[in-house]
Structure formats: C-alpha cells, structure tokens
C-alpha cells in the first residue's frame, strides 16, 4: 500500500507534487506578456486570468485571493507576477510573500511590452534554473490535499468513477490527508444526506445554507435550472434531474465526516473532508481548488470532459466503456470493470490511491501532457 509519495518540500512546510515556476497575470491585459514569457522559458506555466480591472469589493477580493492562492500552491516553486502597474501587482504579491517562496514581479507601466517580455523572460529563466535544483523527498500521504470533481457526468458517473474516487478519498482521510468536494448546485436533492455527516450542527447548517442560498437565487431568476444543470450532455447521458445527478456526484466524497465549509478558493484549516461553496463548471471550480492549495485533483467523467487545471495535476477517472474508447486520450484511470466485470468500487479505490501516490511522485496526467489546461476565476458581481 502506498503510504508515501515523493514530493518537493516548500519553505512554508507544505509539499508540492510539481515544481512549476508560475507566471501569473494580475489582470487580463497582462496575458499576452505572460504567454510570451512562458513560450520562451521551459519549466514555467502561464496562469492567465480574465477581468480584474474594473472589479471591486468582494468580487475583487476573491480575484486577488485566488490569483495569490495559485501562487501559494505547493506545486509552485517560484512565482513571477506580470502586472500592468505596481499597486494592483502588490495586492497579489503581499498575499504570496508569507510562503517565503521566490517571488518576482514586473509591470508593463512604464516599460512597454517588449521590455516587459525581455525582463520577465530573464527573471523567469533564473527562477526556472533555481527551481530545477530542488529534489523530491519521501513524504507521507497526509501532506496531500486533493480536490474531487465531476464533469461531463452521466449515469455511469454515480456507479463507477465517483464511488471509486470516494473510496480513494476515504483512504486519504484515514491516512491523515484532506479532501475537498465542491460544486454547490450538485447537492440539490442530496444535501440532507451529506449534512448528516457534518461534525457538528454549525457545519451542517453552513453547508445546507449554501445549497439553499444557491437554489433560492436560481429560483428568483424565474427559470428551470434543467439544461444548465443537469447540462445537455448530462441529459443525453441519461441523467434526468439534478437530484439524480447530485446523488451520484456526492459519491466522490466517500463516507467520512464533513469537517468544515469553505468559501471560494479558501484553504482548509484542518485535515479531513471539507465542502467548498463554489460554482460547478469545471474550469472555475478547479481554479478554486488550486487556490485552496490542493496538490492533486480527481475528476470523474461519464460522457467525457477533457479539461485540467494549470497548477494542479488533474486525474480523469471514467467508467463508461464508450467514452473510454472514443476519448481514450483524455482518461487517466479506467473504472469500467465495475459495470463490465462486477468489480467493487472499494477495490478500484485502492488502485486509485496507489495511482494518486504515483502522480504525486511525478507521473504525468493526460491533461498535463496534452496541455489541455485552463484557468478561470468565478465572478460574483458585475464589473464597473
């Protein structure tokens, strides 16, 4: 049984499973410079974003915290911030600095694009060479925080990939690690079952309140959420109602007690199983996991959703025999033996736990190798 993995110890005591130099855009107008630097320097990842300029209040706080959270993520060895001007860049920098990791920043004002790309490339090169001198060390699995997600779900999701991820989640929690489940809308109809697992009444109420708040908001808009969640492809895959989808989605969280309720991108303060109140679409949800410090993500899929996260290796688990054939290049772990050969999810979960240790030690995922990765920070208010 895998009880350890090989990881990169960081100055703040966390342990990374990757050793990225993250080049992070402070706002959308920085993305071209971020991409140019990353094209020039091996070992970097481009963490781009949309908006930020024109955001204010809570919405802007979430954006700054999420950008900084991705910089703080243990998978990031060093950070280069690419900003427009020094004030907003410092808002993100000061949130990363406490980790003690190497941190550089460049701004386009007043140097211009060509100078910003040149100076950014020079600094990123130095950071990448320094990061490459770090070595992996044997680390207990308890150092891991994993996000559990599902996307492109169908009726096989609740029977195969999600219970397999759930069995892996239970193993990790038992070994002292942390698991975060999210996607608030995907608890509609199953919230009473999950709430019963809360460690106390306050956690139970916080969780149920988050689900009911979301439902109230959807209802106040006067629309049936069906078609949006379940999505059109969920429905083609046989999922009929959000209640049915939720009962299958919840299986990803295994059976252990619910320790706390987190806001978008918030890191858990203790070990165990946690719920994060965040929108369900994969890219913005995985971005929140990255900001919360997850080192790995396990992503169950039925009809197939290829997307992964930039900072956090995303393991695609699928138990639909048709998708495993047609979208084989996007799947990392085959859970089809549950329906095809009567295998137990608990047995596959053991295999997935060993695979988690392998990916944490450096085995790459399909979405990393194909670079099908994207970043999006959720918006909570309009821009002005």
């Amino acid at each position, binding site marked *: 049984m895998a009880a350890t993995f090989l990881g990169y110890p960081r100055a703040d005591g966390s342990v990374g499973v990757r050793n990225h130099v993250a080049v992070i855009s402070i706002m959308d107008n920085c993305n071209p410079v971020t991409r140019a630097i990353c094209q020039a320097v091996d070992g970097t990842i481009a963490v781009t974003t949309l908006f930020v300029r024109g955001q204010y209040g809570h919405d802007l706080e979430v954006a700054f915290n999420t950008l900084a959270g991705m910089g703080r993520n243990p998978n990031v060895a060093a950070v280069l911030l690419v900003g427009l001007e020094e004030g907003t860049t410092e808002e993100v920098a000061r949130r990363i600095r406490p980790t003690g990791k190497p941190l550089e920043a460049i701004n386009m004002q007043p140097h211009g694009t060509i100078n910003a790309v040149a100076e950014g490339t020079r600094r990123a090169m130095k950071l990448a060479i320094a990061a490459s001198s770090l070595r992996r060390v044997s680390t207990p699995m308890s150092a891991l925080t994993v996000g559990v997600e599902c996307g492109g779900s169908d009726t096989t999701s609740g029977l195969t990939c999600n219970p397999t991820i759930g069995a892996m989640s239970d193993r990790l929690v038992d070994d002292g690690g942390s698991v975060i489940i999210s996607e608030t809308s995907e608890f509609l109809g199953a919230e009473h079952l999950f709430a019963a697992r809360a460690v106390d009444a306050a956690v139970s109420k916080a969780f149920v309140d988050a689900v009911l708040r979301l439902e109230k908001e959807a209802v106040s808009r006067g629309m049936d*959420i069906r078609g949006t969640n379940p999505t059109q492809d969920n429905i083609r895959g*046989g999922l009929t109602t*959000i209640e049915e989808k939720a009962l299958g989605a919840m299986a990803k969280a295994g059976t252990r007690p619910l320790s706390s309720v987190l806001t978008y991108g918030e890191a858990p303060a203790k070990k165990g199983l946690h719920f994060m109140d965040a929108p369900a679409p994969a890219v913005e949800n995985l971005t929140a996991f990255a900001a919360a410090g997850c080192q790995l993500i396990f992503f169950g899929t039925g009809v197939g959703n290829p997307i992964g996260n930039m900072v956090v290796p995303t393991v695609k688990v699928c138990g639909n025999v048709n998708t495993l054939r047609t979208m084989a290049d996007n799947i990392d772990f085959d859970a089809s033996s549950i329906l095809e050969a009567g295998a137990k999810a608990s047995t596959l979960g053991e295999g997935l736990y060993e695979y988690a240790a392998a990916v944490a030690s450096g085995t790459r995922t399909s979405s990393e190798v194909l670079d099908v990765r994207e970043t999006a920070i959720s918006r909570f208010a309009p821009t002005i």
Partner: protein
Amino acid sequence: MPRAIVLDRGDNVATLIDPGQAGETCLLQGESGGEVVLREAVPFGHKICIRATAAGAEILKYGHVIGRAAKALAVGEHAHIHNIESARGRGDRKES
C-alpha cells in the same frame, strides 16, 4: 440481452448498461433481479421503469427520490425528462 442495474430494492427505475431495442428482454442486476421487456428503444445509460408508477408518484433511484412522474409510467418504458419532473431549482413554477 441488455443489462440494467437496480441500485436499491425499493427503486422503480433501473439504469441500462447496454443499449436496448423495443421488444428486447432486459436482464435486471444488482439489488433486484428478473427480466423486463423494453417497450421502446432505450440508449446506453438511460433508465427504464421497472415498477408501474402513477402520475405524480416519486421516482426512486439509489433508494432516494430523484423526481416525480410527470405521467403514469409502465414497466419497460424509457424513464427520462419526457416523463419525470425535477422538484428542485424550479424557478419556472410559481409555487417554487
């Protein structure tokens, strides 16, 4: 013979894990057994009714409510959005 999984003894729907054609006999597996004749073609992963269900009655899968029958469902009928209604997130209903 197409197979369908029953997840709880009390369920009135089962999930096909093979595509099925009208008139084909479907083998029930999992928490309950037996055979059901399909009344129509049903795609892989979609559900069939395995117990006659009245209009307005609860639809049960995993032993839990996943919605209500929008019309009466007969055994062997395709059970999906055309005959099952969700009860959640329904801003289109005035009473919600």
